[in-house]
């Protein structure tokens, strides 16, 4: 193997570079490519190297940071006042929604208790700024300016106000790399919000793709896709995208769908990282109202959007709370044979974080439903 830095003598001898050295370096490069691609042995080395790379990333992120700073400074007083007013209004609306949702969540927890199901573990979120740099355009990655020192760890789900963005795949002290949904290496287990059909979304570079949709599944263009929680990496109920096109695949036995991501996957300023949080506690004075039929029953019904009627029989929940069409117990439509009505073991997260999705201004009418439909699938997850 040749010495690392080319010795001056070699390139002095005429202008023709020696093909032997070329071959050696080419072989080395190809070995690296193969090792990196196939074996994954280099991942440890890469993790080490990422630590070295970190300051360069920070340096490269400076112009972006400077740019936003300049933009911030250049904003006029009038603009700021306007923005402030708008944000305050949004906050007001979001808070109002939040209270409604809290009631619903409480109600839900209560019903769970009635059904003797396990308490859900809550979810908490952490804000992390994006480091403004462009990585390899083939791979869809983001670098966060928060790392293991801030409590970021590998495997955390990353969301923004619109929906799921991806997951953390590598961390160093002060940086974390996020694999975006659209990366070709990425796949998410999802369900169709409307009918609970469970599918998998694959990344396709800059769009998302749903593969192997059964023709009989009744999936249509415009369907909302949410995470199913299968596999345990992503909590259930987060919007992933909306189907924009459907076409038959090569075998003509299945459909292939194209998805528009729900989250804003190009650079924003901040993202949210999910982490386990405190579960919803039922205040003791509410605990004894078991037989009352649910005092808050009208509330969830109020923001139940115009949905196809959950007319199917409700075997699990029917006896327990007849007055309340609580979504957690709603069975799926028959199109999803594997998804049974809610089973007795919910260890479902996602309740405390759900209001956060609302903050970003996703459609108010539709999003509260979204988690509900996904829920039956969670029970499947827990059965595994």
């Amino acid at each position, binding site marked *: 193997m*040749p*010495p*690392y*830095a*080319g010795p*001056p003598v*070699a*390139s*002095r001898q005429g*202008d*023709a*570079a020696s093909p032997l*050295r*070329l071959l050696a*370096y*080419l072989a*080395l*490069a*190809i*070995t*690296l*490519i193969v*090792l*990196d*691609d196939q074996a994954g042995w*280099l991942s440890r080395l*890469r993790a080490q*190297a*990422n630590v*070295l*790379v970190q300051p*360069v*990333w920070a*340096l*490269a992120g400076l*112009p*972006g940071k400077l740019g936003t700073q300049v933009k911030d400074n250049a904003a006029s007083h009038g603009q700021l006042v306007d923005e402030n007013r708008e944000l305050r209004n949004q906050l007001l609306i979001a808070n109002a929604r939040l209270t409604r949702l809290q009631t619903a969540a409480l109600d839900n927890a209560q019903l769970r208790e009635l059904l003797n199901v396990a308490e859900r573990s809550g979810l908490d979120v952490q804000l992390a700024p994006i480091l*403004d*740099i*462009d*990585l*390899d*355009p*083939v*791979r869809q*990655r983001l670098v966060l300016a928060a790392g293991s020192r801030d409590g970021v760890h590998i495997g955390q789900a990353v969301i923004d106000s619109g929906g799921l963005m991806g997951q953390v795949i590598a961390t160093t002290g002060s940086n974390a*790399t996020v694999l975006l949904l659209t990366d*070709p290496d990425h796949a998410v287990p999802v369900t169709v919000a409307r009918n609970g059909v469970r599918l998998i979304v694959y990344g*396709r*570079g800059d769009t998302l793709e749903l593969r192997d949709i059964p023709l009989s599944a009744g999936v249509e263009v415009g369907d909302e896709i949410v995470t199913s929680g299968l596999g345990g990496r992503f909590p259930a109920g987060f919007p992933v995208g909306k189907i924009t096109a459907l076409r038959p695949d090569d075998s003509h036995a299945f459909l292939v769908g194209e998805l528009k991501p729900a989250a804003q996957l*190009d*650079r924003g300023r901040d993202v949210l990282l999910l982490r386990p949080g405190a579960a919803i506690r039922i205040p003791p004075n509410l605990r004894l109202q078991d037989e009352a039929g649910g005092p808050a029953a009208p509330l969830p019904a109020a923001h139940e959007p115009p949905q196809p009627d959950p007319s199917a029989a409700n075997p699990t929940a029917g006896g327990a709370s007849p007055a309340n069409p609580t979504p957690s117990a709603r069975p799926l439509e028959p199109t999803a044979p594997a998804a049974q009505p809610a089973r007795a073991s919910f260890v479902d997260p996602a309740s405390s974080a759900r209001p956060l999705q609302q903050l970003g201004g996703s459609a108010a009418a539709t999003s509260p439903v979204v988690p509900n439909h996904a829920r039956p699938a969670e029970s499947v997850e827990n059965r595994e």
Partner: protein
Amino acid sequence: MSRLRDKPWVLPVSVVLALLLGLLPLPALLQPLRPYWLALVLAYWVIEAPDRVGLGIAFASGVVADLLYGGVLGEQALRLVMLTFILQRFRARIRFFPMSQQMLAIGGLLFNDRIVSAVVHIVVGEPTLPWSYWWAPLLGMALWPLLFVLLDAVRFGRRGR
């Protein structure tokens, strides 16, 4: 061309700057047009200072770039080694080309580099870049004279050669 007044710090600084320029955030519309700065800078050094920059440095900076950009490890190393080798082979001719021909040669090299990259991606099974990225060599070609003059000016001081 006297090498006596050559400033030794220009080489590492230019390579690091090229690496940083590759990471610089661009608006989504301009992203496909991002020239391959590292290749341009290395091409300059291979042509102008062949005793300092050879396959070794090309390989090393390629590996560093792969780590920085998070791509397939070794891909850019391969591309840059190829580019450097071709340049070394034809250095004697390219050096004395008029600028317009030099530009064409560099454009051809960058285009070839795109092909190599696409081949690597196909072999590894990664998706290739969209077609809009094939415009980047043209921009790199257009930037070559600027870069050449700039690096020369920095290297030999303000008076030029």
